[in-house]
């Protein structure tokens, strides 16, 4: 960066009409510049239609980040910018998750909630446990050489590398257009596994020092329920608050959109403060308030909310990927261990496939619409890891987890691999397997009408036959 050009013996100089005050604006200026660079990059990418059809935007952004990071490093020999967990968790992630929740197709989501929960909870625990244990097992055989980690450290790493990332899934699946059921299952999984992820992660970090006793394990399981249900409740509470407030905003239409964002953000922060699942809170806040807010606020406000949300989410996503690239250029953290890195990649892929197959087999006995082999392939392949894993690993304390740098490097490589390689190849894969795509058309008026009639009919039949079923809740 440049230094201020004010001369040191300033005291009795004449009044300078114009002066260059870099230090004064340094912080916000740099932030604004990065945002500008990221946005300009997006424009440049989309100039070439051929490239964007093949390469997912996220991959391009990461590469750009690498490039820029390289420049900064070459110029200054310092890694001055990186994706700090604070910035990520407080400013970049909430808009994306809120956007996901607010525009969540509720019907589809709740219709498939059972499957989503299974994958999110059982699937993530499975992935975490198997990956961690396998890595530990291999470590014991000595192939990895000398490491300073114990079983708990491996499990810790397993837990943070296990979870499917919502940002990455959104970014890649958006361009692939698989059918909505498939998308909602993978995406729903990526959102809900947050509860499991943080929980498992936190418990391992906490247990790290003390011994693993039965009571600690029990506490871990209980805390899972508390964190996830608590987070959800916080979200629902704020959704209620928001819906209530939006009923009275008739005379302050101009700031109406503001309420949506502020209250949702508060739900995120409140959950975080109570050490509950913040992602679940803001997701469910968005999911639950959708209908009421859209009904209560004016047309213009609704449009404003929509576009602002999309813009913030898209902007945050762009910045995340770019910074993922930049943060990678930090020679301080680079630790290479071929066996560890390679095996991690292998294990997460293999165990995901196995996990998906087993769970789908169980689920298919209860689902009307079956999940076929092709769907399972996409689900396994689309289980991308992303920035969340990176942010979590960056949070690790180097003193407590001696091999932190190795974990960080491996995480970076895994994230790059999944986003770039899997992102690049998923489109041809989907086309090759002839996955059933979404019918990308506006539902016709008749469809909407009949859809409504349906719901009422089915609800009535349920009432008449004395059932309380899915449609009862939907109708209400």
């Amino acid at each position, binding site marked *: 960066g440049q230094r201020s050009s004010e001369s040191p013996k300033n005291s009795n100089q004449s009044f300078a009409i114009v002066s260059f005050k870099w230090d004064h604006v340094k912080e916000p200026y740099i932030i604004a510049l990065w945002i500008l660079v990221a946005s300009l990059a997006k424009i440049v990418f989309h100039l070439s239609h051929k490239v964007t059809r093949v390469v997912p935007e996220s991959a391009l952004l990461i590469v750009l980040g690498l490039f820029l990071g390289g420049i900064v490093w070459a110029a200054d020999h310092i890694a001055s910018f990186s994706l700090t967990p604070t910035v990520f968790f407080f400013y970049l992630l909430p808009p994306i998750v809120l956007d996901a929740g607010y525009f969540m197709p509720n019907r589809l989501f709740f219709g498939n909630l059972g499957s989503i929960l299974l994958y999110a909870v059982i699937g993530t625990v499975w992935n975490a446990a198997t990956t961690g244990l396998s890595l530990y097992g291999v470590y014991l055989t000595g192939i990895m050489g000398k490491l300073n980690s114990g079983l708990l450290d491996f499990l810790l790493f397993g837990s943070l590398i296990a979870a499917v990332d919502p940002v990455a899934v959104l970014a890649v699946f958006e361009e692939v257009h698989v059918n909505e059921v498939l998308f909602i299952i993978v995406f729903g999984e990526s959102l809900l596994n947050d509860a499991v992820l943080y929980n498992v992660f936190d418990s391992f970090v906490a247990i790290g020092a003390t011994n693993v006793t039965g009571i600690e394990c029990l506490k871990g399981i209980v805390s899972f329920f508390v964190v996830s249900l608590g987070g959800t409740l916080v979200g629902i509470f704020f959704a209620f608050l928001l819906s209530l407030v939006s009923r009275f905003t008739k005379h302050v239409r101009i700031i109406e959109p503001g309420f949506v964002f502020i209250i949702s953000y508060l739900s995120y922060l409140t959950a975080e403060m109570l050490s509950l699942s913040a992602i679940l809170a803001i997701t469910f806040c968005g999911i639950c308030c959708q209908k009421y807010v859209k009904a209560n606020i004016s047309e213009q406000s609704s449009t404003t909310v929509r576009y602002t949300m999309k813009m913030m989410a898209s902007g945050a996503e762009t910045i995340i990927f770019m910074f993922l690239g930049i943060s990678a250029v930090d020679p301080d953290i680079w630790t290479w261990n071929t066996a560890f890195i390679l095996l991690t990649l292998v294990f997460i892929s293999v165990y995901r496939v196995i996990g998906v197959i087993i769970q789908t087999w169980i689920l298919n006995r209860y689902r009307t619409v079956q999940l076929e082999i092709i769907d399972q392939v996409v689900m396994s392949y689309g289980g991308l890891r992303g920035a969340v894993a990176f942010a979590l690993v960056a949070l690790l304390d180097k003193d407590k987890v001696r091999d932190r740098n190795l974990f960080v490097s491996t995480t970076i490589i895994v994230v790059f691999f999944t986003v770039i390689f899997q992102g690049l190849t998923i489109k041809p894969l989907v086309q090759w397997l002839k996955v059933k795509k979404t019918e990308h058309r506006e539902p016709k*008026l008749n*469809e909407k009408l009949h859809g409504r*009639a349906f719901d*009422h009919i089915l609800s*009535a039949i349920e009432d008449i*036959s004395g059932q309380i*079923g899915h*449609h009862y809740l939907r109708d209400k």
Partner: protein
Amino acid sequence: RGVPGAFPAPGTSLLSLAVTSEQIEHLHRRFKQLSQDQLTIRKENFDSIPDLEFNPIRGKIVHAFFDKRNLRQGSDGLADEINFEDFLTIMSYFRPIEMNMDEEQLDRFRKEKLKFLFHMYDSDHDGKITLQEYRNVVEELLSGNPHLEKESARSIADGAMMEAASICVGQMGPDQVYEGITFEDFLKMWQGIDIETKMHVRFLNVDTIAHCY
């Protein structure tokens, strides 16, 4: 048609409906509840279901139970009362698809469900859904929404009708009049939408929910 209050004999045509005996038992209990232990139920018996009151198209749904076209009797018009067998017949329109159905069965299944829907819309039983009937349906559907005026409901219905016409007949000349949606047209409208997977109620093995009557 069987001893009062007793279970229908296995020899009846009920088995052809492929509903499990558990489900039949459950529905039978429900039927007895609704009919207050009589052999048949009338339209008034449906008033005793509290949640049904809030349903905007309750009129049409209850009507569908008494519609002779749905009762597979080959006749037309409205029945005054229905017995348990008829009740089951109507419920069978809502059973979920079974795993072992082949193409032909699936197709027949789909047609049956769509026919049920069609009869609901075609209130004057003339085999066509006219514009007036369509308007009627839309008004009823949207009656629960206080913000929507009758005018808007009418325009929605008109728009939907035009859309249906364009699907079924294609480009119409200025003199052509679209009489109404026939069943074939109705089928055309629903092409591509998996009604079989959506139009069913899962009869779970739960005890009859205690209703506070």
